[in-house]
């Protein structure tokens, strides 16, 4: 009975708020304008609730108890986790009734999700939400997928879960309008060799597949394929794939692809003195990184 009325996939790089100053090529501005457009389209779709497909960055969870998939459905949330990101601290409403429903349906369909009724969303959730729905008025459910600590769920499995997410939303017995937001990616390398690189060719190839709804070609990628072409950071494309599968069959529109090296390099810290100067990079010419994409 419910319906998915909009879906957006976008980057969540801390650099967006840490390094917002314009670059010579105007790439950052391109991304900001695209996010404004996505925000407008999301508003026009009049959503009642949001589901964000995202990943923990080893902040809420550690390896003593590390979920492959986790549905976070608290009553409320506050974020971002990183206290010293230069952005406001927001309160968010959860949607525990929907979360409980989805969890039960998932287990019934043999998706053995972990769950959490307490979660502090990090930059990965809050940066996109702050651009896409700064009102922070809609109830939010988080579907977290392991994208950072191998072994990772297969893209295939993420696509299956995404398809199920779409089905479950459409079977939710309230006449509500859901919007989906996928966050993270595209190619980037964090804390390993090739840090600072971006693989524009791979990014553009993926965006093309997404725009054409060619889900299968992404679902059959292996973690090794992704790592080689997109880095450990690129494993976050699972979030985009999951949302793509939830709206399977729908073409997408690329609003921007803005490769920005500043943005793959900036990293936040949770507490303490803001080490912005120590972690800054002297300016090379801009290269490449994530864009914003609207699926309608």
């Amino acid at each position, binding site marked *: 009975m419910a319906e998915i009325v909009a879906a957006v996939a976008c980057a969540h790089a801390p650099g967006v708020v840490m390094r917002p100053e314009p670059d010579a090529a105007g790439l950052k501005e391109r991304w900001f304008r695209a996010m404004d457009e996505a925000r407008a389209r999301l508003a026009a779709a009049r959503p009642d609730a949001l589901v964000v497909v995202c990943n923990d*960055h*080893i*902040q809420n969870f*550690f*390896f*003593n108890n590390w979920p492959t998939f986790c549905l976070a459905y608290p009553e409320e949330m506050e974020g971002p986790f990183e206290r010293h990101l230069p952005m406001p601290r927001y309160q968010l409403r959860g949607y525990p009734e929907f979360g409980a429903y989805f969890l039960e349906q998932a287990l019934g369909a043999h998706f053995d999700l972990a769950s959490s009724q307490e979660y502090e969303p990090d930059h990965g959730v809050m940066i996109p939400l702050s651009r896409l729905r700064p009102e922070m008025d809609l109830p939010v459910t988080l579907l977290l997928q392991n994208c*950072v*600590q191998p072994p990772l769920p297969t893209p295939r499995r993420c696509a299956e879960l995404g398809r199920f997410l779409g089905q479950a939303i459409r079977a939710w017995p309230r006449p509500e309008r859901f919007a989906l937001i996928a966050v993270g990616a595209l190619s980037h390398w*964090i*804390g*390993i*060799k090739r*840090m*600072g690189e971006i693989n524009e060719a791979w990014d553009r190839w993926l965006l093309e597949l997404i725009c054409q709804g060619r889900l299968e070609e992404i679902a059959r990628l292996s973690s090794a394929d992704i790592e080689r072409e997109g880095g*450990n950071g690129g494993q976050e494309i699972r979030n985009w794939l999951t949302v793509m599968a939830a709206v399977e069959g729908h073409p997408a529109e690329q609003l921007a692809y803005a490769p920005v090296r500043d943005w793959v*390099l900036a*990293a*936040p*810290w*949770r*507490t*303490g003195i803001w*080490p912005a100067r*120590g*972690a*800054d*990079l*002297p300016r090379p010419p801009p290269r490449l990184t994530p864009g914003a994409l609207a699926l309608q």
Partner: protein
Amino acid sequence: MSAYRINKLLFDLQMKPELFDEFLAHPEAVADRYHLTPEEARAVIEVDATALSRLGTQPYLLRFYTVRRGMSNEELIRQLELA
């Protein structure tokens, strides 16, 4: 070799400001509490990203730690190239 103990220390340093302060003041004592080997302890205390990477430290935790310790991106990239 599992980097669990290193990762655990880096995670706790991220989560507990008092532990971080204690670690700066008494690094060997804290490393010892986390049962780090001498090699692991040295890598963490000296913020040796090359060694930490070789020891299998989780890349995200490594990255957050170097940011916290004021290492520049340039320097981290240089050290990771050697790993």
